[in-house]
């Protein structure tokens, strides 16, 4: 039935358009120049006027019918079942199965009655929605159709509608941010302050605790494993891997950028840039695979040949490959800022007899410093938020260590580990993931805001 409604709605729109367009031609006896707006605009306006109310009726009516049908079905259930809230949801699932014909075997009579009531109400409701929709559409059409006249400003009205649509699209970007903030802040608040939640930590336990063990929160009966939500080991793990990544990507990315911007011939530039672009376009899951199956055993092998104890999920492997991921990022951002340094500064240095590298080190880089700093900040934010490489190549155990050969875990790994699989939204463990998400969002946001601010000010300086 809902499909039928949809089909009718989609079919009516072109009909309305076509009818209105014809009418517009007719009112001026085929001379569109006399009209204020082209016939097409009259058509579009009427089509929109028909479509919107129908859509509203559909969007409001269909869920209302669903709710009404459910209420009627509950009313039709035997009273002892209806009163028992716990059983009711299971019974209602069965009712829904019977109603859709997916139920195997013979249902209990009470359930059969409820299912019949559900189907009957639903069908009647959908029919009512359809009739209402058609009536509204007819009324809207009559109203709009009658207004078609030479002087009627159909274009202006239609353009006002288009403007609202454009605005709504732009608003989605804001809504996304609000959605993110809403979801992480709300669940984080519950994690810390919901009195119904068992095993929730205090804010200071979370921020300064050195033990992270969310699994135990699942099984309250296990007395020997203490639930702990200490964030510090995750932070050190994340920072360790990020530091390794930046230690790799920083020099490589920056020197690549300097060479490309200052030394490379246009031909070399044209052939090296795609290499960096390819590297930037490689999905992180591929890098994770590379880190876990190639780099980590390699490092382990080397380490052992030197007699070092290397974990098979060492921070070094994850950090190295994450560094690889970040090289193109740092390089392209730095390239931009180096190119933005005015040639006149370089000329000044050359005129004093500086060599090229002296010019770069003493003049270009200091001038580009704010931009480079912001590139590094953005890179850090990237590394902190990166998930797949660490999920595949770093460990799970939260360990407070700064040894790069040890296995560490990160914020993103923990979010992923906690939330993959079935979650219950009333356990401290699940909510802990949202608290971590909140921290992640907040930290990266700060880094980005500051970095973008620096870049903006830097741009203004040289514009």
């Amino acid at each position: 039935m809902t499909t039928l409604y949809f089909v009718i709605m989609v079919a009516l729109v072109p009909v309305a358009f076509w009818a209105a367009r014809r009418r517009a031609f007719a009112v001026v006896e085929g001379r569109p120049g006399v009209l204020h707006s082209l016939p097409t605009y009259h058509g579009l306006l009427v089509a929109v006027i028909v479509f919107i109310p129908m859509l509203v009726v559909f969007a409001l009516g269909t869920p209302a019918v669903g709710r009404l049908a459910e209420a009627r079905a509950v009313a039709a259930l035997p009273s002892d079942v209806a009163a028992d809230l716990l059983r009711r949801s299971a019974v209602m699932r069965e009712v829904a199965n019977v109603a859709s014909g997916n139920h195997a075997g013979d249902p209990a009579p009470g359930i059969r009655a409820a299912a019949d009531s559900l189907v009957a109400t639903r069908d009647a409701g959908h029919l009512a929605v359809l009739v209402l929709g058609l009536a509204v559409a007819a009324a809207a059409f009559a109203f709009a159709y009658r207004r078609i006249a030479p002087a009627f400003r159909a274009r202006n009205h239609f353009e006002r509608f288009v403007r609202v649509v454009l605005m709504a699209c732009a608003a989605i970007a804001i809504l996304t941010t609000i959605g993110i903030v809403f979801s992480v802040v709300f669940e984080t608040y519950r994690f810390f302050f919901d009195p119904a939640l068992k095993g929730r930590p205090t804010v200071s336990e979370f921020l300064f605790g050195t033990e992270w063990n969310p699994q135990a929160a699942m099984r309250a009966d296990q007395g020997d494993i203490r639930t702990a939500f200490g964030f510090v080991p995750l932070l050190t793990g994340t920072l360790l891997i990020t530091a390794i990544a930046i230690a790799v990507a920083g020099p490589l990315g920056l020197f690549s950028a300097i060479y490309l911007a200052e030394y490379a011939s246009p031909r070399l530039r044209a052939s090296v840039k795609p290499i960096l672009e390819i590297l930037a376009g490689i999905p992180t899951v591929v890098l994770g695979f590379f880190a876990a199956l190639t780099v980590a055993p390699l490092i382990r092998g080397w380490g052992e040949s030197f007699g070092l104890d290397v974990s098979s999920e060492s921070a070094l492997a994850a950090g190295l490959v994450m560094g690889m991921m970040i090289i193109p990022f740092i390089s392209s951002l730095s390239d931009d800022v180096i190119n933005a340094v005015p040639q006149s500064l370089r000329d000044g240095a050359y005129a004093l007899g500086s060599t090229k590298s002296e010019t770069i080190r003493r003049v270009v880089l200091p001038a580009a410093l704010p931009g480079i700093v912001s590139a590094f900040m953005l890179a850090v934010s990237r590394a902190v938020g990166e998930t797949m490489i660490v999920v595949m190549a770093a460990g799970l155990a939260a360990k407070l260590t700064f040894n790069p050969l040890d296995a560490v875990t990160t914020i993103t790994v923990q979010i992923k580990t906690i939330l993959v699989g079935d979650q219950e939204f009333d356990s401290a463990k699940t909510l802990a993931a949202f608290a971590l998400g909140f921290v992640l969002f907040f930290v990266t946001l700060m880094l980005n805001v500051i970095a973008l601010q620096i870049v903006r000010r830097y741009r203004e300086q040289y514009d």
Partner: protein
Amino acid sequence: MPEALSIRTAAESSPAAATAATAAPREIKVTARDVNVSYGEKQALFDVDVDIAARSVMAFIGPSGCGKSTFLRCINRMNDTIPICRVTGRIEVDGRDIYDPEIDVVQLRARVGMVFQKPNPFPKSIYENVAYGPRLHGMATNKAELDAIVEESLRRASLWKEVSDRLEQPGTGLSGGQQQRLCIARAIAVSPEIILMDEPCSALDPIATARIEELIDELTENFTIIIVTHSMQQAARVSQRTAFFHLGRLIEEGPTEQIFSNPKDRRTQDYITGRFG
């Protein structure tokens, strides 16, 4: 729309009236009274009063930044596209205030065409460039009529001979002078009553400029033309009347000959003799 109807009647009846442009009493097309324009805090135009006769060429001259382009852009409300621009006063076309909220700016611009400083053909075919306006305003009911309008407009812009065999080629492939004539063809295709030209020859070489000036002369038959120009020679060559702007004020307005031979204001005198500019 009665206004729209009157556009065409005016345009159609114009050839008869055009012959006696100088002899007959002046028929006023555009009237401006107390026009003030400001961009944000900065006022660009002060109390401009001017009358512009139908089917004649009016030239606006003056040093850079004197407000002549600003005033030109008020006449078809192009200034509306600049958010911080504010216009007060009264500008009438055929006795109707064009800043009246009742006026549809889109229709106004169909009546008051514009040619810009730099040729700006659409990145489409020559045909599409000219046909766009007529299509927009529903001026043709079928392809044959549209073809006729396109041909007529290109002929009037004396471009037809050069492009009739390559109407499907992009307008951006023409030479600068041809592009500018294409833009003129595009403007006259919607049969405006007034054509505003904002330094139409400043990006062209002398030969192309001469062609455009010739064209302006021919167009006077049917259209009221208001041209902003940097070149006083050009103003002298093409216009019947000239207005001199300085520092946002209209200093002097009168028959072109008189302005150039016997200006009443010192500042006009200084400008045309090259003391400043």
